[in-house]
């Protein structure tokens, strides 16, 4: 039985490198599918409203703002990651 064999393989302890890579690839694609949607307007508007003195300059030109955001920030996931100890206050702030 094909299904039984697959279950046995999967349940029999550690996954093979091949299986891990395959799962990782799908996970990354599912995740990136959302990331590629970028920043919805509601969040640009939200942070714009909270940042009054810049709103006037940016409100009429969302594409310029988006370009600036992209240019200044670049790849936010790769660079500049620091040790977790660097944000010790986060627990309190979110509770």
């Amino acid at each position: 039985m094909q299904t039984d064999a697959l279950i046995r393989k999967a349940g029999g302890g550690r996954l093979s490198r091949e299986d891990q890579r395959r799962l990782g690839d799908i996970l990354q694609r599912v995740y990136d599918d959302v990331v590629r949607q970028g920043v919805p307007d509601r969040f640009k508007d939200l942070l714009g409203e909270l940042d009054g003195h810049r709103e006037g300059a940016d409100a009429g030109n969302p594409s310029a703002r988006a370009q600036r955001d992209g240019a200044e920030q670049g790849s936010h996931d790769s660079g500049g990651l620091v040790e977790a100890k660097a944000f010790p206050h986060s627990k309190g702030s979110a509770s």
Partner: protein
Amino acid sequence: MTMRPSVRDAMLAAVPSLRAFAISLCGNVDRADDLVQETLLRAVANIDSFQPGTNMSAWLFTILRNLFRSEYRKRRREVEDTDGSYAESLKSHPEQQSRVEFEEFRVALAKLPSDQREALILVGASGFSYEEAAAICECAVGTIKSRVNRARTRLSELLAIEGADDFGPDHATRAILSAGGRS
């Protein structure tokens, strides 16, 4: 309230990844976006506790996770009912083959215990190190490693059961999911 432009831009830059994390946590795009919005509001209100130059993304992920968990405790049963929203979120994907693959994967992901799911996402997709993921989840690094391993094993089991034909189209599963989405 004053917020430096660089801080605001760092928050905006983290939004796409925050949304992906939030959707994977709660399985519903609308709720995920509400969660991201609440996270940004909390972050702005507590911006004084953010240390400039440190990892804004990790800080925001921590806030979002804590918000989700406090909400999750209130709405435990509702959170498990995610199949309909997964089916809905797939409408936008153009490629049929990938759609089915994504669908089965997301459904399997939703069945993982939330501790394992978040650990797998943080390390396997968000690009955080084990140490950063441990800080975000407020647990030991070894705990994160163990959760990630268990998540991978469990996912593999679930996909083997539900998509025995090599993750390929499974019409029965799709039909069930489509029906589930309307209920």
